[in-house]
């Protein structure tokens, strides 16, 4: 039997636009997969990863068409099959695990039935045997209380649980090939770590081949043996994962890897210039020319072909670049730069914002609260409790934690959108009135906020000029001409040209919109900017650019940031100090260098261990129990239910003491510092990174 499972040859697909034009998405893609192989597919958003993954099931989204080439599964051309023959392959021989399980499961059907139907259809199971097999599959993906779970509807499960159900559904038909489309995007790092481990385990025990689509290099490093890099619908590099990560030969791969912030390295990643072409923006020659430091005349006129490099190995190493030898010879040139000058932790740093023992609750207010009290309902624990922190002028304080930990709640309170229930907030030495209406305009100006999703925060009907004009008009006495000049200057500062003034948000990419949002915040010349997950909706390459921008602006303007993120690597790259939050309670706070070195708080340790690093061989080392929590516990340590190092009933009953590790570094835990110091988590040293972090030479 041949080992070859899948052969894609010269595949070109396109879709028809409203105007009747056919735009190419995939261009001449050729690729083979062996039985049991795990192949990662990376690339920026919109480069055609999902489109490619779906063709492996003979599926095209509405309007899509195959223009040339073939996808052969065990020698059978999938696009030559009729619907009935395709249905026999789908689910049984090739299965897909969708990007977002919450929208891919049918809301009106019990999860058990959705798995059972695959078993009935493909394996002909029925009755008790069927029931048993469903339970077995759910247990397989480590779901709890499976007997009760099969009767639930999708909306009754958490995101992580749904993703597991989707994996069980994919495995049900015992497929030979699994297509996973960003199966962990949107999940917390700890949940993601569990799912990645599960995938690895399944691969080892069943020998199922996997195509793992993601823009998260770290996740791919943990699951895959081989990596393919896609740019503008073409495969530009393809090889063993260790080879590609250790020394990428395509300039795009180098740029992509270089823009990933590393947990183990303090410093900003190198942003890649430009953006990928949209479908239809076809040019002659190499599609990467406008962004490539190695481009020359040959690149502009001749389309490079995918060719083998000289590197020997079990998995051939292919690259699509005229000058790969030159790229390779240039060495691991541009190291990640420690652009941001770290603030010295001196006592003179002037406090800007001080929160003291702040409690925040979403509990009922007013009449509803009276009714609840009258009915003797117990008051729910506060969402944020005893929150005490100081932000100094010009520093970046990061707030990290999983979803639901109360990060955005705190930002909303500082912005005055949600009054605290107790505690004191001082800004620049003055008491900050809690409600936004009670604050003077000057205070509004000094505190600005940037949100995760620029689509939601920028008015789609306004031009960039109007967007930037609003704060200028509100806070400064300037004439029209002055405001226009200022808007232009602001755009230059966020590295957009004044040509963007006339554009609407709909005419810009995600990264460009986020820059406009940053420019708007800085138009007010704030002292404090609240950045709420500002890069999590962006590609790594765009994220790197926005991080660099924020760091640069801070250096010039001296604004302080409250930087909220769930991504520990991003935080390490940009923060001066970090507060780790669990269920609205601070577990650990300290300077960034202290946080990322032992002793760790058990929760910090869990988070750090869960982050997949884009380095071969990196594995999760210590995991907390994967149970979603609805409410913080009323007594004891907030992390008691999930803590992997829990020492006993003291954790449940007594609030952990604040232990002072070093200047400004506090850990709240019952475990003595000496024991906390013996961590099992070992971040890769910067020396090792130096050999990996090859990035594009900036000419």
């Amino acid at each position, binding site marked *: 039997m041949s080992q070859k499972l899948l052969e894609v040859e010269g595949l070109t697909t396109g879709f028809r636009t409203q105007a009747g034009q056919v735009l190419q998405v995939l261009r001449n893609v050729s690729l083979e997969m062996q039985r049991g192989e795990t192949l990662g597919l990376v690339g920026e958003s919109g480069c055609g990863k999902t489109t490619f993954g*779906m063709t492996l*099931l003979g*599926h095209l*989204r*509405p309007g899509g068409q195959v223009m040339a080439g073939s996808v052969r599964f065990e020698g059978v051309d999938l696009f030559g099959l009729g*619907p009935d023959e*395709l*249905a*026999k*392959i*789908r*689910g*049984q021989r090739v*299965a*897909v695990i*969708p990007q*977002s399980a919450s*929208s*891919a*499961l*049918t*809301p*009106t*059907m019990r999860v058990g039935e959705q798995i059972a*139907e*695959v078993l009935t*259809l*493909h394996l002909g199971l029925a009755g008790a045997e069927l029931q048993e097999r469903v339970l077995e599959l759910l247990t397989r993906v480590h779901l709890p209380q499976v007997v009760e779970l099969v009767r639930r*509807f999708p*909306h*009754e499960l958490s995101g992580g649980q749904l993703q597991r159900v989707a994996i069980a*559904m994919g495995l049900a*038909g015992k497929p030979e090939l699994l297509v996973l489309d960003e199966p962990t995007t949107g999940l917390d790092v700890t949940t993601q770590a569990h799912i990645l481990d599960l995938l690895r385990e399944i691969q080892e025990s069943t020998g199922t081949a996997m195509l793992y689509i993601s823009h998260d290099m770290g996740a791919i490093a943990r699951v895959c043996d081989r990596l393919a890099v896609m740019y503008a619908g073409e495969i530009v590099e393809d090889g063993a994962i260790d080879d590609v990560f250790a020394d990428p030969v395509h300039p795009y791969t180098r740029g992509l890897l270089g823009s990933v912030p590393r947990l183990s390295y303090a410093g900003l990643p190198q942003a890649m210039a430009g953006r990928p072409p949209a479908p239809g923006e076809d040019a002659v020659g190499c599609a990467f020319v406008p962004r490539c430091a190695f481009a020359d005349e040959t690149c502009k006129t001749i389309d490079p072909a995918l060719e083998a490099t000289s590197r020997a190995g079990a998995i051939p190493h292919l690259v699509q670049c005229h000058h790969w030898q030159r790229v390779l010879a240039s060495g691991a040139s541009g190291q990640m730069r420690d652009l941001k000058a770290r603030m010295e932790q001196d006592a003179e740093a002037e406090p800007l914002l001080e929160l003291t023992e702040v409690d925040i609750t979403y509990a009922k207010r007013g009449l509803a609260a009276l009714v609840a009290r009258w009915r003797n309902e117990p008051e729910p624990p506060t969402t944020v409790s005893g929150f005490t922190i100081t932000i100094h002028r010009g520093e970046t304080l990061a707030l990290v934690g999983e979803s639901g930990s109360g990060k955005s709640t705190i930002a909303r309170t500082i912005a005055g959108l949600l009054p605290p229930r107790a505690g004191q907030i001082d800004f620049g030495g003055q008491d900050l009135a809690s409600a936004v209406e009670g604050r003077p305009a000057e205070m509004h100006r000094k505190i600005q906020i940037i949100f995760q999703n620029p689509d939601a925060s920028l008015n789609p009907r306004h031009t960039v000029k109007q967007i930037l004009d609003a704060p200028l008009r509100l806070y400064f006495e300037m004439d029209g001409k002055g405001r226009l000049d200022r808007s232009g200057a602001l755009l230059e500062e966020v590295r957009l040209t004044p040509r963007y003034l006339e554009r609407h948000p709909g005419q810009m990419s995600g990264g460009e919109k986020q820059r406009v949002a940053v420019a708007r915040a800085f138009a007010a010349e704030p002292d404090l900017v609240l950045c709420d997950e500002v890069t999590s909706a962006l590609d790594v390459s765009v994220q790197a650019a926005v991080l660099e921008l924020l760091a640069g602006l801070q250096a010039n303007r001296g604004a302080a940031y409250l930087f909220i993120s769930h991504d520990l690597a991003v935080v390490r790259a940009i923060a001066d100090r970090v507060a780790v939050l669990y269920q609205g309670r601070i577990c650990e706070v300290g300077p960034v260098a202290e946080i990322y070195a032992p002793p760790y708080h058990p929760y910090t340790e869990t988070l750090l261990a869960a982050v997949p690093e884009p380095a071969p061989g990196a594995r999760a080392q210590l995991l907390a129990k994967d149970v979603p929590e609805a409410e913080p516990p009323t007594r004891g340590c907030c992390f008691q239910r999930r803590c992997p190092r829990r020492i006993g009933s003291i954790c449940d009953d007594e609030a952990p003491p604040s232990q002072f590790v070093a200047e400004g570094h506090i850990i709240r835990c019952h475990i003595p510092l000496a024991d906390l110091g013996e961590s099992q988590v070992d971040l890769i040293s910067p020396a090792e990174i130096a050999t990996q972090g090859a990035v594009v030479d900036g000419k």
Partner: protein
Amino acid sequence: MLKLIVQRLLFSVITLTIVAVVVFAMTDLLPGDWATAYFGKWATEEGLAAMREEYGLNRPATERFAEWVGNALRGDFGDSLTRKKPVVELIKFRLRNSLLLGGLASLVTIPLATLLGISAGLRRDRAPDAIISTGSIVGMSTPEFVIGTLLIWALSVGLGLFPSMTLGNPDAPIVDLLPNVVMPTMTLTIASTAYLLRMVRTITINVLTSEYVEMATLKGLPRARVVFRHALPNILLPTINIMALMLSGLLGGTFVVEVVFNYPGLGRALVDAVSFRDVPMIQAIALLWAVMYVFFNLGADLMTTFLDPRLRSLRG
């Protein structure tokens, strides 16, 4: 579940109370009173006084409202001003006639529109969809009186199949009404099917392009199972509320169709009552409509809550 039903019922009662107040206020507290409205410009001092005396219009509004509600609860809406007979007697048969017409129309419309809407959605942008959609646009943009007139011209003037006008009394036995009800039913059916099927088609297309239907297809399930098990419940659930709205509109009688065909239903009764300023009659019909509207919406709400697992656990 029980808690939810009680809650919804309570809410309906509140809605109805508000409606009753509004109806009463509109007809009773507007400038002038029934008497001036009734006599119009032929009012004489003596006539007005006599009428005010007879209907107790000199008493305070609150007192009269309480009395009106009290009587209405016992099914007594007073006497019609023009016919001098109890309103209930007059409305009874008209309500029956409207229910007959609306009921027949709904009986055809709901299955027909659902079927056509789903078929069009399933074969989006292909011949069947093009035909159905064009038909529905034509149906929707043609006013009911035009449809009615065309039907009269074709079926009764041309072919002589059905009588074009209803000549019998409102209280004629149902059997006698049957030939008269055919064409109004057709008119109503055409108009409401056109409207409902477009809604169903849109919902169908949304569901069919959803990720979960794509996923079901990619699991290798046969098309029939994808459509009936995965898509259909999600198409039907949101249509229940639209149907309830339509039902309360159809069953309460429809002005245009009843006027065109001279059909003795509630819609025409209201037109007459308004033109004769027959206040007790107007009040009774308005209240009846409100009751129907609230009733059908309550039914639809309870039904969707019962059928939709998301709502069930949310409100459980």
